[in-house]
């Protein structure tokens, strides 16, 4: 059980430059804490997130991947988040089939003004991943040990 | 007192499901209260008493039994603090302190006539109706 309490998940968060990354900045400047397990990668738009990136993250040992974009209708590039939503719906159901539980993947809309939502989302997501425990399914065995 | 002041204040918040820190001290609850004149501690004061962790005073005050549980304050509170539910929670605590923190349904008819305040039943019905 001690192993479970010490479990520090690796969480990769892809944030779009215009809304969610700015939302994360606002969470930071408002001092709204979320676990240090979350590491953010900046992308221009949620539609830049290639499923390949997510697969690679799980392969390299990530325990959860979250993609944050602008709210529907508010995408800086008009339609990017719609593409992201469709792609991720497909990808996540495939990942689920492969044994990467739904709780480890998420798409969330966070605007530049929603620092609170960003922090809450990250707290919830990390909690969810913590309950699921370490991800073993897609790990690249060649890289381990 | 068994529970600490802090714990009592937390209990009021748990039972009522309200966050007194959301209060902006506008007084709309007291403006709306039909029983205001008869209250020794006014509806808006209930909120600050909980913030200041003085639930003991609330448990002793007359307002608990004067409150009509009409929930006008709950309806109108612009900040969703629900002072009426705080009154209700303090009332529950007061009842618990008097001993017996639960009711056995079969015992109700007898109790209703004697010790149990009608107020609490009415309030409970109103509270859980929605």
């Amino acid at each position, binding site marked *: 059980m001690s192993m479970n309490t010490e479990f520090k998940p690796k969480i990769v968060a892809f944030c779009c430059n215009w809304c969610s990354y700015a939302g994360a900045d606002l969470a930071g400047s408002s001092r709204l804490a979320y676990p240090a397990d979350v590491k953010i990668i900046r992308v221009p738009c949620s539609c830049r997130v290639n499923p390949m990136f997510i697969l690679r993250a799980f392969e390299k040992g990530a325990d959860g991947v979250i993609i944050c974009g602008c709210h529907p209708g508010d995408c*800086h590039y008009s339609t990017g988040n719609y593409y992201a939503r469709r792609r991720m719906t497909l990808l996540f159901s495939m990942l689920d089939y492969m044994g990467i539980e739904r709780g480890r993947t998420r798409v969330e809309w966070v605007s530049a003004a929603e620092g609170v939502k960003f922090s809450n989302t990250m707290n919830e997501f990390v909690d969810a991943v913590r309950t699921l425990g370490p991800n073993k399914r897609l790990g690249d065995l060649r890289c381990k040990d | 007192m068994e529970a600490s002041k802090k714990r009592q204040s937390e209990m009021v918040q748990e039972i009522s499901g309200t966050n007194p820190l959301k209060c902006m001290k506008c007084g709309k609850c007291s403006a709306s209260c039909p029983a*205001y004149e008869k209250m020794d501690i006014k509806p808006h004061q209930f909120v600050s008493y909980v913030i200041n962790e003085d639930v003991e005073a609330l448990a002793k005050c007359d307002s608990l039994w004067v409150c009509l549980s009409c929930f006008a304050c709950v309806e109108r509170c612009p900040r969703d603090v629900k002072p009426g539910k705080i009154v209700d929670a303090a009332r529950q605590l007061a009842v618990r302190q008097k001993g017996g923190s639960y009711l056995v349904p079969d015992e109700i008819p007898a109790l209703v006539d004697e010790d149990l305040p009608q107020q609490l039943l009415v309030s409970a019905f109103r509270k859980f109706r929605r």
Partner: protein
Amino acid sequence: MHGIGVFVCHCGSNIAATVDVKKVVEMARLEPGVVHAEEYQYMCSEAGQERIATAIREKNLKGIVVCSCSPRMHEATFRKCAEKAGLNPYMVEIANLREQCSWIHKDIEEGTEKAVILARAAIAKVSLNTSLLPGESRVTKRALVIGGGIAGIQTALDIADAGYEVDIVEKTPSIGGKMAQLDKTFPTLDCSACILTPKMVDAAAHERINLYTYSEIEKVSGFVGDFTVDIRKKARYVNMDKCTGCGVCMEKCPSKKALSEFNSGLNNRPAIYTPFAQAIPNVPVIDPTQCTKLKTGKCGICERFCQAGAIDYTQKDEIVTRKYGAIVVATGFEIIKLDNLEEYAYSQSKDVITSLELERIMNAAGPTKGHLERLSDGKAPKNIVFVQCVGSRCDESKGKPYCSKICCMYTAKHAMLIRDKYPDVNVTVFYIDVRTPGKNFDEFYRRAVEEYGVNYVKGQVGKVAPQPDGSLLVHGVDLLDGKQLKISADMVVLAAAVEPSPSVRKIATMLTASIDTNNFLTEAHPKLRPVESPTAGVFLSGICQGPKDIPETVSQAGAAAVKVVGLLAKDKLLTNPCTAKPDELMCNGCGSCANVCPYGAISYEVKEINDHGIRENRRVAVVNSALCQGCGACTVTCPSGTMDLQGFSNRQILAEVDAICR
């Protein structure tokens, strides 16, 4: 890549307090390719930038990582610094140690560990960066201002005075906006119309300002410096060139049942109307929902009486397409609907009014010719109660969470004016806090209390109950005296919250400008770039950005105008070089990428391709880098992996993923 420099900023104690910066430097030195790492108190300072420049020159750095605040803050600063030192500006990456790490983590061990990983990810990315050169795009020397209120008028005047053409698009028949509806202005008690109408005339007469009234934005495309906008000129049914503005048509029109928008619906206007007497342009419009001729074909009275022959029932909406270099949003505000606040009896009694309605009642050109009277029976009120914070500072289920900012001051103004003109009227103001930050504001409020005898009561109103005798029983509380009050009033005035004009959401979507949860437009930076939208070329003026009073609106309008002029003064703009780039060898010309491109930046050409010695003509994708905005939708859609995004390439992002998950 060999030759990476890492620069860790303390940001005073902002970073150094929860991140062991020395440890970050130490760990960064161990990363492959890193030849230089140092820490300094303020990297963004001149001395800090000098350190970076010196290191680039002396150690011949090929790429640098600055571990500091958000790239949204200082990426541009450090890019400029690198460029000055002879390094391509796109060889700079930022690790966001402040917003993403030190400010949100309290434990120094945890913070340092995360900081090291963030730095590692940035190093991994920069080692795959390539030098990029920005392209150039032209600037159309014309600005569009959306909204013709005081914000829009002032912005347009300032831009036009600087020598650039401006178009104002206003959805109502006249410019003037909400300020035209006001009677007096605080804290000087200037007559609103007296200071606004000259500005309206200036705008209309200005040789470089063009007004599109009774018009709306239909479609926006393009980008900073080169927007293309479709404007819908709604049919006025009156020929603007022929109309002399004599007003006979309005007098003769038999359909007079429509509620006057300008008078807040307190009285009626004809179907053919100008919103108010000083309207600009002074050309009426026919309201097609009210006009008998347009609805049934029978009437035509206005046409018969119009000596200029200006009436034209056959007019149709017209779409005008124009090009602009910059767009200013100045869409203003509306008063919220009071449906959620039934306790104030706004919908039950005619004598419960909003403050904007009181402005019209107090105004000499208003429905009561400036006499203070009850709308129900026309009697002069003796007791008036003002209620503040109606729908402002509320839980989201009840109203708006923000302070509307202007209500404290206009309520003091109303109370003072009433006491001045009608000394026998009792005025009571229920307040929660009186907020008077502004020049001469608190003095103004004190005058209302001390000189005019306005009764300020600290407390809120719980209920307004209309009585059978026509009076209003106000249930309130005086928190300082600890008394519940029941006041019999003749009139209750509600300081209802302001909200951004509902039209703004549609406009923001067209402009791809971001908007917050309250429908206020977001600034590029809340402190340092308050009049710019994060979307390049879009600027903000007035209440569309947040609640503000007239002087603040006017200063913001001027600030937005300066930003617009600064943009229009340039002949060329540098474009973002982070654009999509196809690998011709891998492209099979399937057409998927062009389908998802929101900018139409991708086309196909038949090119001769040398595929490992085999020369053949193939249909391949070509990206127009002037049009590409770099979203990356095409890169993920491409089935063969041909498309990549410069500056955010697949390899770069994968390197970041690897570094984080290592």
